[in-house]
């Protein structure tokens, strides 16, 4: 193949908005070749690929992350008419399968040679209104020996809904298909209709309640970038502390849940109470155990005060010590290891081909972690080394949680003591750094632009992208929770496993339903 001249615009992490016209528009042939050429490289993966109505037609936007350069590469395509059938890129790049399905579902665009353009979530504004949740076309195998097991949408526990359809040979799972969409709330559209920054900030905290901070920080960065505002180093640091507290709480909670699924009650109970200490620290800081209300663009209502830091440091020390003890127990008990080791494996090449991100990539030796590759805010101040495992099984996923929770406890303790030396000179109750957006001032917003923000939430990379119109108003808002990439990893993990191992496999990924369904 001749050397191709690529045509894209580079965006830095937390970079300024770019004019929409500065994003190269390629014809589909060049668009495809460029996508394939760039993604051929293992260090490049697709962060976003979506379409939105534009100038009486559609505009496709692709955002790739280049881990080597630390930049995001953005380019676009405008189909001549929306009844076009394009050649699918999925056979070449399976990681794009869901992005193409989403474009198809929303706008009816055909993708020839796509293995199966199934619905993604049956959104309210779908192209085919005549079809609904009950019309989902499941993969089937006709055989006298096989049977199907359907689970959900309502599951045994108190969790979100989704449907799992297993095809089994006896106790062994041959195939799992996951139908989602039950949680679809039309949240992207509400971001456009919101009319105020405050409303969008609150919506961002409710995209996925277990990642309230992750999504809120990403939205805040995007909003600040549009308005051309920079925030103080103190605020950057506080956001990083909040992000890591969220990670610690969920990782410890997941450690508990993994213990539950292998009937190790001791580990479950101890870890549950350890998680409580962390979320109660967040509550002490901002009045909400999930950090809702803590993150606001351009300021904060809850600056970290000296008493909160003091309590945080105590909790981290104590919880850190107890977590080390209990996880040392867990990872040395043969009765637990036998249920983790070699169960629910995903290979490195599978993870790469489906475009896995976050923990689901790192468990197979793929060091994707936005904190290391595309750091912004406080993360840009130091060099984060991702925690990587290689076995791709439940054990690897459990171990990543263990190691990351320990690492984050150390980081937050270090940062918080740094803050406390600054904080103690301030008043004991921090004063609000009210956001420019809440003072009734006119805040500018870049017109006719594209803006992107990406962060490493506890699950993996969270991406928000917005397009503004002639008044600087948001005309399109795109949200991607890491779960969007990673559900496929769960489906692959359970192949050839005992169906009784499904719960522990599922828990070891702990993916978001509402984050996927939007």
């Amino acid at each position, binding site marked *: 193949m001749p050397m191709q001249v690529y045509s894209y615009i580079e965006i830095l992490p937390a970079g300024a908005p770019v004019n929409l016209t500065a994003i190269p528009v390629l014809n589909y042939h060049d668009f495809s070749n460029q996508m394939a050429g760039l993604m051929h490289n293992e260090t490049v993966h697709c962060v976003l690929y979506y379409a939105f109505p534009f100038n009486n037609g559609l505009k496709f936007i692709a955002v790739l992350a280049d881990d080597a350069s630390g930049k995001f590469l953005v380019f676009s395509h405008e189909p001549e008419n929306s009844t076009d059938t394009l050649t699918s890129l999925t056979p070449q790049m399976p990681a794009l399968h869901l992005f193409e399905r989403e474009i198809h579902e929303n706008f009816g665009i055909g993708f020839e040679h796509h293995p199966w353009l199934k619905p993604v979530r049956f959104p309210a504004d779908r192209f085919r209104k005549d079809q609904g949740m009950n019309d989902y076309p499941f993969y089937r195998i006709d055989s006298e020996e096989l049977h199907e097991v359907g689970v959900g949408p309502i599951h045994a526990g108190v969790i*979100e809904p989704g449907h799992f359809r297993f095809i089994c040979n006896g106790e062994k799972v041959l195939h799992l298909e996951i139908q989602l969409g039950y949680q679809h709330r039309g949240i992207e559209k509400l971001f456009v209709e919101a009319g105020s920054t405050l409303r969008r900030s609150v919506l961002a905290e409710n995209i*996925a309640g277990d990642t309230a901070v992750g999504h809120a920080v990403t939205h805040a960065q995007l909003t600040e970038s549009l308005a051309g505002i920079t925030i103080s180093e103190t605020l950057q640091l506080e956001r990083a502390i909040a992000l890591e507290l969220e990670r610690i709480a969920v990782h410890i909670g997941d450690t508990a849940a993994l213990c539950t699924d292998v009937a190790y009650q001791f580990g479950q109970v101890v870890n549950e109470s350890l998680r*409580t200490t962390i979320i109660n620290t967040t509550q002490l800081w901002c009045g909400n155990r*999930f950090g809702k209300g803590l993150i606001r663009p351009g300021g904060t209502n809850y600056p970290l005060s000296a008493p909160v830091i003091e309590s945080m440091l105590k909790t981290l020390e104590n919880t850190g010590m107890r977590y080390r003890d209990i996880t040392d*127990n867990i990872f040395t008990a043969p009765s637990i290891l036998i249920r983790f080791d070699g169960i629910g494996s995903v290979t490195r090449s599978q993870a790469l081909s489906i475009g896995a991100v976050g923990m689901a990539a790192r468990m197979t030796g793929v060091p994707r972690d936005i904190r290391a590759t595309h750091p912004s805010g406080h993360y840009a101040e130091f060099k984060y080394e991702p925690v990587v495992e290689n076995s791709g099984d439940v054990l690897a996923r459990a171990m990543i949680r263990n190691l990351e929770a320990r690492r984050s406890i150390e980081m937050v303790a270090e940062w918080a003591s740094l803050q406390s030396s600054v904080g103690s000179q301030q008043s004991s109750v921090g004063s609000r750094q009210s956001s420019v957006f809440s003072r009734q001032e006119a805040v500018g917003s870049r017109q006719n632009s594209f803006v992107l923000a990406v962060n490493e939430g506890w699950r993996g990379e969270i991406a928000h992208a917005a397009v503004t119109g002639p008044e600087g108003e948001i005309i399109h808002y795109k949200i991607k929770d890491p779960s969007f990439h990673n559900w496929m990893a769960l489906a692959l993990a359970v192949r050839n496993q005992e169906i009784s191992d499904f719960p522990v496999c599922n828990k070891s990924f702990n993916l978001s339903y509402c984050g996927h369904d939007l």
Partner: protein
Amino acid sequence: MIRSIRILRQHGVQYVPNLRTAELNPLFRGRPVIKGEVPAELATHLAKMCPSEAIEIAPFSIDLGKCVFCRECEFAAPENIRFTNDWHMATNNRENLIVKADHDNPVIPDPDLVRKEIRNLFRRSLKLRQVSAGGDASNEMELNAAGNVNFDMGRYGIEFVASPRHADGVVITGPITENMAEALQICFDATPKPSLVILCGTDAISGGLFQESNAVKRSFLIRHPIDLYVPGNPVHPLTFINGVLDLIGRK
């Protein structure tokens, strides 16, 4: 072995001894209090600013069934609005969720409105099926926490169960998405009657942030009487457990 003993010792007693009188830290955003008359101009500004359309201006009020407890109205009008750390917010009377000026009493269920059979049947044992219909997982996690080692609502015989056939009622979280509406109905129909309906969290009570979304379908709520509204974003386990205890008539 020694490590396990050490873990146990450090674990100590996690149990909250008295759930009825437990207090939360001062910053917890619970039941708001409105002081005095809110000037008309300020009231209009607050109503417009509120991200969840929870504020009415004449007379000035905050609807706990719509409020997402962001506390922004207090920051904008600290003279008039204060969010207390009182977690008493669950009630069976929708009207009682509307907080008016100078009302400063815990919001609790009205015993006269409780269906008779409820207290007779469920006072000593209540099994619930939780259905998330667009919930963002935070309410679901708090409901799980209600049964954990700290809150342990199992001490009152209250428990979440897997099958609706074993359940005395459903606890709904989320604004009820159109895509989940049918499954919710099927689940509710599978519970033996009488069956409680508990709406947990702002999204469930009013649609919350999703009131205007065309992806929600709330007709289930027109067809079935609501036994308990539990406000919060998410609800605090204490709000939920105490609300249920008051509903079923436990001390």
